[in-house]
Every structure is written in structure tokens, then in C-alpha cells.
């Protein structure tokens, strides 16, 4: 019934979905999970505040990946955080420059920013510059970002999503423009650049927790708790499985291979 070789994956998938459902309905009933501090997330307000004080725009990039591909979840996480950041810029009347690389993210991001401004009663303040498509070509995008960051002297640069080789150019370029930087991605080989050069970093899973954390929405917070269940199961499998394997027992390994 289940595709061969995917039985264990399917079970894990079902476990995740069930955990998410359970934890979300628990949260709805008022059992809010404790969520630890995520420094990069808490710095969002500080960053927007700084740009506001300086009278400069906030620069935002929700990654470079299209919403119909396997990297979409990272874009979605970036967009979730954009929703929060744009509410802040609406509230404080700060300029916003969202740089878009994936054509099909453009309408989504526009809609998100529009909603934030409507929510803050600032619909009339929206400008086309708030969400700009720059280029879907990697380095044309990077060059255009450098140009905006320097020309408009952005005070804060927030980049959360899937990035590729351009990361270092974006984050160091922002630092050279004297912007405060908050960056997050799950692409393992880009994280080091953010870690080295950004003021605050969201490492891997932190970026996915970030949107839920910021929204303070109990339902979303519940799904973070489910992620922890998943990690716990993974950890248990690794520890028990490795010990069994060392003793010559391959039960768990064979199970996972199913």
C-alpha cells in the first residue's frame, strides 16, 4: 500500500501531523507551551526601531526561492516574519524595502504587506517600492540589493528564507552600509556566513519557529511543540538504534530502511 522504502518515512510523517494536530488543539484549549527565547526573533523590534530612529528604510528579503518548489517552506517562513516586520514598519511609519527574487513570491509578499498596513490603518501609505521585484538572476539580484542598501542607507536589513551563494554579499554589504542585520536560513552551507557576519542569526529550525513565536498565535505555538516531539523521536531512534547496532542488533535500522 505504501510506496516501497517509504514506510518509516510515512510513519514519521503521520506522527508529525498527528502531533501538530494534538499540540495545536491543546494550545487552543489554553495549554500554551513554554517557548524559549530566540535572540534573533526578539531583535526584530530593535532593528525596526533603529531604522525608524535613523529615518531610514528597513530592508527585507524573504529568500530567493519560488513558492511552488521544495524550498517553499523556507520562503513561507520568511513571509511569515515579513508579515510581522511590515506591521512594525506600518506602525512606526518606517519605510520598507522588500526585495523579491522569485516572481511568484511578488504577489504573495505584496498581499502580506498590504494586509499589515490595512491592519494598522495605514493602507494609504503603501508604495510600490515596499515590495520590489529585483531579479530572479542570482547576482543581478545581489547587485540590486547592494545598490538599494547603499543608496537608501538602510538602517536595518532582515533576511530570512532560502539563500544560496549570495548570502555573504547581502549580509556583509548590509554591514558595510551600517545596517543592523538579522539573518536566517536553513541551507546548511549558507548559515556560516550569517553566523560570521550578521548581528543576529536564525539557525535552521529557528527560522520556522520564528514566525509562530512572533505571531503569539496559540495554534502556531502548538506546532512548535510538535516539532520538539519530532526531534525527541529522532534523538531516541539515533541513541537506541546506534547502541543496538553496536551490539549487532539491526532491528531499528531495518525498520528505518522500510
Amino acid at each position, binding site marked *: 500500500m505504501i510506496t516501497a522504502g517509504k514506510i518509516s518515512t510515512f510513519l514519521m510523517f503521520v506522527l508529525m501531523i498527528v502531533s501538530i494536530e494534538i499540540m495545536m488543539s491543546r494550545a487552543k484549549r489554553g495549554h500554551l507551551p513554554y517557548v524559549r527565547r530566540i535572540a534573533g526573533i526578539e531583535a526584530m523590534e530593535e532593528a525596526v526601531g533603529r531604522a525608524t530612529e535613523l529615518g531610514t528604510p528597513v530592508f527585507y528579503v524573504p529568500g530567493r526561492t519560488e513558492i511552488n*518548489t*521544495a524550498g517553499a517552506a523556507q520562503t513561507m517562513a520568511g513571509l511569515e516574519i515579513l508579515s510581522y516586520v511590515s506591521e512594525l514598519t506600518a506602525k512606526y511609519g518606517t519605510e520598507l524595502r522588500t526585495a523579491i527574487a522569485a516572481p511568484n513570491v511578488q504577489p504573495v509578499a505584496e498581499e502580506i504587506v498590504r494586509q499589515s498596513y490595512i491592519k494598522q490603518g495605514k493602507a494609504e501609505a503603501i508604495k510600490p517600492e515596499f515590495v520590489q521585484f529585483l531579479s530572479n538572476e*542570482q547576482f543581478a539580484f545581489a547587485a540590486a540589493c547592494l545598490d538599494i542598501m547603499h543608496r537608501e542607507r538602510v538602517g536595518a536589513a532582515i533576511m530570512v528564507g532560502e539563500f*544560496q*551563494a549570495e548570502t555573504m554579499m547581502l549580509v556583509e554589504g548590509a554591514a558595510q552600509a551600517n545596517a543592523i542585520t538579522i539573518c536566517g536560513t536553513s541551507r*546548511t552551507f549558507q548559515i556560516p556566513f550569517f553566523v560570521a557576519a550578521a548581528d543576529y542569526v536564525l539557525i535552521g529550525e529557528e527560522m520556522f519557529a520564528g514566525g509562530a513565536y512572533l505571531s503569539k498565535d496559540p495554534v502556531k505555538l502548538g506546532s512548535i511543540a510538535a516539532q520538539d516531539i519530532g526531534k525527541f523521536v529522532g534523538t531516541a531512534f539515533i541513541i537506541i538504534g546506534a547502541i543496538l547496532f553496536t551490539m549487532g542488533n539491526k532491528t531499528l535500522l531495518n525498520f528505518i530502511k522500510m
Partner: protein
Amino acid sequence: MRALGNVDRRILYVVLILAVLYPLIRPLGLPFRVSDWTLNFYKAVDKMQAGETMLMSIDYSVSGGPDVHPQAQAVFKHALSKKVKVVFVAFVTEGVEFANQMIAVAEKDGGKYGEDFANLGFVPGVEVAISAFAQDILKVYPKDVRGNVTADLPIMKGIKTAGDFKLITEYATGIPGPAEWIRQVQTRYKVPIACGVVTVMGPQNEPYYQSGQIVGLLSGLRSAAEYEIAMKMPGAATAAMDAQSMGHVAIVLFVVLGNIAYLSEKGKKGGR
């Protein structure tokens, strides 16, 4: 000391450029060693028999080309020397041109298009396209880049799905890359896949290498140079290695100087 920490970044840039340029003009001839990532890639190609067919998927962009193209060149050269047939495809637009360039060189050396190698071209759709390609090559590529009917090419005889290749090699600067090929091809067809990637992607793909999902891994220009050494045909990549060394030394120097300045500054503050 403080000056060391706040040195104008433009001075760093000039130092870096000179460090790289000097050995390019006057090579130093530093020796280096071949890693097992490269060696296993080399072996995977080397154990192929004359007449067997290998796929080369050229999925790197122009901008990342200098880091990956030399790998593809080295592997292609190796395949030709072993009389292994090579089919090129691309899931990144620019890949087509890179394949054409390599083929043009091989044709000059007497290779026959359509028999020894062929370039099927580019299809859009990234991962989706790879998946479709793996299932039915002729449907995704009814014609090659030169307008020939793919099914009529002698090299395509007996090749219908990705499973019909003896070895698949993938060269990438981003997406698609090893992850996409593993997901769409390796998990369904049990063909060995070997990958060449830009240096940054090397460590990230180590887990796939460890778990055996890819049989060999080339990472950046260094791997291309190693491959040239493994083939005993040193080329341009080998020559660039000296420049590489000097560039690394320059950057390490920047880090060290920055830290000396930082620590002495901190020491002074602590003393007060």
C-alpha cells in the same frame, strides 16, 4: 595595534588581489594530495567499460562556473580517454552552453557527436523536470540541441530512463543539486550518482556521501586539480592551486591581524 583592527578594507582587497595574481604570473609549484571524495569519483568513472554510457548533468550557472566547470572538463576528458560515452543534459539554462563548449573541444580532438557524446539541452522545471526526465528521457527530450531526433542518436540506443545509465554525474552550483538528484533519481533508480559542486556545497553533501547516496564528490576547483592529478594529466586547475594557497594565507592573515588588534585592545581596557 588599533590601526590593525580598523585597517581600511580596501587595503585588504589590494593585498588579496596581489596574493592571488602573483602566483598566477609566476607559479610556485606547491604539491598537494588527492582526497578520497575525489578518488572515489575518479574510481567510479575509471571502472566503467569502453562503450558504456554516462550521464553528465550540467547544472551550474555562469557565475559559479569557474569553480565547477573544470571538474566537468576533467571528468569528460577522463571518460573520453576510457571510450565511455557521455550524454549531456542541463536543468539550468546556462548548462547547455557549457556542454556545447566541452563538446566543441572534443569534436576538434576527433570525437563523433551522436556516437561518443550528445547534448540533449535544457528543460525548465528544475526538480519536476529531473523527475520527468528520469522516468522517460525521450519524452522530455524529443530532440537534442542540434535538432536531431533524440531516439535516432546511436548513443541513445537502449537508454529510456535514468536507470539505463551506468553512472550519473551531476555538477551544481545550487538548485538543482545533489539533493534533487538523490530525491528524484537515486531513490527510485539504483544508479550510482557522483556529484561535483561548488566548494561551499561540499561539506553539506558529506552526509549523502557518508550514507552512500552519492558515490563520489568533487568540491570546487581544488577537486578538479586533484582529479587532474589522479588522471595524471595536470591542467589549468592544477596551475591555479598556488594562487589558491596564497589567497588562503592572505585571508588567514586578515583574521589573525584583526584578532591581535582586538585582543590587545581588550587587554588595554581590562587593565584600566
